[in-house]
């Protein structure tokens, strides 16, 4: 893998400029956490990367390929994404094994081959048993019967079935209760490390942003306000962040900062 390069320059004609002339280079294997207050452009950034919207200016490259105008469904072969809402990552009326089988085919052509074969089912059972959630015995249950935490964990597992070049985590633990959130977060981290994934994680929680990943960026008004990686990031504390950037961070983010202590 050549390493990912992404250059953003978006200046909307609209009043609201969600992402403003933002440039960012992401190296292969980077695990970047993104913080910033509401409206700083965190989710917009992910939407641009995944192709949900197209930028008004600028370009996006993955592995040197220009993907700026490539629709979302075609970018799927590069990018895996987990949303904040656990319900968005799985098809509720379809069984656990069907959801897994669909994820395994991410970005590939889907023909008239049988969706869930015996061999696949056995494999899914093995993979699911590692989670110790008892899901391995519920392969045929619709995903809609699972709890939010279980569904988010399943979504996470679905990503690993077909390793993407880039994984986007969009506050994917924010809607879960603290205990489940912690579990899902640990699992995500483990997954990213084991598979040497390149990942971007958006979070409201400063403690998380510092604890996980090898690089952290802070967005403010659509621009990168702060970019820190390696040793410098390891030595960072929530207090330091609050002291330096308290003015640009809104209440919600500060709130999580105090909670995390």
């Amino acid at each position, binding site marked *: 893998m050549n390493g990912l390069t992404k250059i953003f320059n978006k200046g909307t004609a609209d009043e609201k400029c969600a992402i403003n002339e933002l440039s960012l280079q992401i190296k292969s294997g980077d695990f970047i956490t993104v913080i910033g207050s509401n409206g700083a452009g965190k989710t917009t950034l992910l939407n641009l990367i995944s192709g949900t919207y197209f930028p008004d200016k600028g370009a996006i490259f993955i592995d040197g390929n220009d993907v700026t105008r490539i629709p979302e469904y075609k970018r*799927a072969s590069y990018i*895996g994404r987990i949303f904040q809402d656990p319900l968005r990552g799985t098809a509720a009326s*379809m069984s656990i094994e069907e959801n897994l*089988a669909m994820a395994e085919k991410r970005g590939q052509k*889907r*023909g*008239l081959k*049988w*969706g869930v074969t015996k061999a696949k089912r056995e494999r899914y059972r093995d993979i699911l048993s590692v989670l110790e959630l008892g899901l391995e015995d519920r392969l045929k249950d619709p995903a809609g019967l699972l709890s939010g935490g279980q569904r988010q964990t399943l979504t996470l597992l679905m990503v690993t079935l077909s390793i993407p070049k880039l994984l986007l985590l969009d506050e994917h633990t924010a809607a879960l209760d603290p205990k489940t959130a912690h579990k899902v977060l640990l699992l995500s981290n483990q997954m990213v490390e084991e598979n040497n994934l390149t990942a971007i994680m958006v979070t409201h929680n400063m403690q998380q942003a510092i604890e996980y990943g090898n690089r952290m960026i802070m967005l403010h008004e659509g621009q990168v306000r702060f970019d820190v990686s390696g040793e410098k990031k390891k030595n960072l504390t929530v207090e330091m962040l609050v002291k330096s950037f308290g003015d640009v961070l809104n209440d919600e983010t500060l709130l999580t900062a105090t909670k995390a202590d």
Partner: protein
Amino acid sequence: MESVLRILPISLEQGFAYSLVAIGIVISFRILSFPDLTVDGSFPLGAAVAARLIVAGYPPIVGIVVAVLAGFCAGYATGFLNTRLKINSLLAGILIMTILYSVNLRIMGRSNIQLLTFHTLFSPMEGLGFSRFYLVIPFFFIVAYGLKVLLDLFLHTDMGMAMRATGDNEQMIRALGVNTDKMTLFGLGLSNAFISLSGALVAQDQGFADVGMGIGTIVAGLAAIIIGETLIRAKSVRAFTLAAIIGSIVYKMIISIGLRIGLAPTDLKMATGIMVIVALGLPALKKGKEGKLHLRGI
């Protein structure tokens, strides 16, 4: 009891014949969550195409194949209005349905075509010395059940699962690399192909095609689906398609019984409409019990 036995053959014949409409509606409403109203136009479209070609001297099977293709195109057109031109799904269906009324008149050249004196698919089943029901009912059963099984199989392939996910969680399956617009176009085409096939077969079975024969098809089909899903408590894909067939037969039986006990044929559509309203509305009136009969797409 005796009267039930007397209405059974006709209910089975018509039930199986119209179950293709119900299966088509399962694809659009249930699988794709797309409330497709093209139905009232694509049903007579199938009848019109088949009738016109049979009268022109083509073998019945040619008429049927062309009718199926025409139905596919009609559904595709509705999908095109929705996915590419961004017209609301209900309006897209109504527009194509309305356009098809003129198209059907063009195809037939007049408002109805009689087929009794022509060679249809059912002609060889007549005058064999025993009731035509003995052949017609098994024929419709094989067609309806066979296509149900084929559809079930398709919906469990990679592509079929992508289609189901398009109706269930469009954003998720798009993020997994599926062109959901394509799935909608193909699914609506498939749905209306089933419905046109039903029209083509019904026209030959009853011996005529009429430009007005499509009115109320969607409501009758929905009634059949609701009855079927209530009876077998359908949850899986296989159960939905089975419910369409069973519901279609039971619906025809209810209608036959209603007519026998004095329901005026002219009030049939009103009765069906009220049936659907009650079935959909009752759960809403019972507070707290949120839509047991909730139909996706409605």
